[in-house]
């Protein structure tokens, strides 16, 4: 299990995510599932409250791919307890995105490629995301602004953030930056 920060041409996030996925898969040697935000529309559209949205997604996991956490553990791990009875569409943009990310991260996957995952999230949300990402499979974060992740201030009151390894994409190959391990 490793967390990578991938530096790439920002245009790849919008226009070459399929190529980016191929290059990351070649570098890691595994198939990656891709998170690509629909900014501020992170919602199935079939549910109303956060509670219903989580229940809907958890109950529709493929039987061969049960969620990593069931309802109560999921809510606790992602700090969503205070939002359960809020309408998803009434959440702030950042929390709505965070909810969608949390549900994506709750799938049992060997590796994930997360495109523009951290914009609109506060440092506290990003720390939670990194902590969960460190629990299962590899996670590759490709951001418009990778420095936001690489320079994330430490939270002295929380467990140490997992180490971040660096990848570089030159448009044809993704390689690990020497000394980043």
């Amino acid at each position, binding site marked *: 299990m490793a967390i990578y920060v991938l530096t790439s041409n920002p245009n790849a996030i919008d226009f070459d995510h399929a190529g980016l996925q191929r290059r990351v898969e070649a570098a890691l040697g595994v198939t990656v599932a891709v998170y690509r935000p629909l900014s501020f529309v992170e919602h199935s559209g079939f549910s109303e409250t956060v509670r*219903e949205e989580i229940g809907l997604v958890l109950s529709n996991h493929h039987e061969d791919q049960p969620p990593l956490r069931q309802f109560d553990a999921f809510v606790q791990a992602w700090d969503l307890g205070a939002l359960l009875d809020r309408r998803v569409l009434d959440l702030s943009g950042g929390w709505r995105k965070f909810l969608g990310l949390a549900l994506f991260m709750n799938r049992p996957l060997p590796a994930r490629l997360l495109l523009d995952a951290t914009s609109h999230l506060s440092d506290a949300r990003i720390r939670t995301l990194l902590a969960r990402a460190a629990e299962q499979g590899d996670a590759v974060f490709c951001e*418009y602004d990778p420095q936001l992740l690489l320079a994330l201030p430490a939270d002295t009151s929380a467990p140490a953030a997992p180490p971040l390894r660096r990848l570089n994409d030159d448009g044809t190959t993704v390689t690990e930056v020497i000394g980043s391990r």
Partner: protein
Amino acid sequence: MSLLRLDSVSFRYVARPEPHPSAHSGWPERAEGQGRDRAVLSDVSLVLHAGESALVLGDNGSGKSTLGRLIGGLLRPTTGTIFIGGEPLDRVPVRARPSKTIYVSQVSYLQFFRASLADEITLAAKQSGHPPPAEETIARFSLPSLETNPRDLTYPEMWRLQLLLLGAVFRPSVMFIDEIVAPGAREQREALEFTLAQRHAQGRVTLLAYQRSLDTHFDRVFWVKGGRALGRSASPEGLGQSVGLHDRPTSRDDVP
């Protein structure tokens, strides 16, 4: 004279009806006491003078966007008053509002209507009654060819186009920018700093909401936390120093 003044502004979202009975029985039930009206901002007072800029900091869900929508006239305060140039905002006719105050949304891609950047600029100029910006001004926003379809822009480019259209063409007296995308990118920082400098020279007020501090200079910094807006000096040594924008003394402990 103040250009933007909030006097004891509070805002509360009114609860919707109970969620519809769900076919997915067996999920944990609604907790007692939840799902009621939700107070977001409470007794917020602040003043910004002509030419000033402010960074509005706060965690996700703290009320930054709600504050922006109130200042932009998209929401009405539950109590309290917002003044733009000394005039209560709710007395400004809707048609006149874009010249007074604009909320720059996070969802920039929903605010483009034409098939090229050139047409977007022409449309904005026509709607605002202002001439299109000079080529040198457009160049400061590092956009691709003006023939490009706005939907073919990257997300950071969409943010810069929105800033150009609203900041440099509409030129409202007060502009609230709800977040910056990729602030570490040179093009983003240059577009923001050009906008702030231009609006400062024009005597206009600019606010930017974000989750963390930026290297860019702002005259004032506010923290939105627990429904309150707390004023701070923007100077590096002054983060613990109240600048008296609120009726309560603040302390360093208030900083999230």
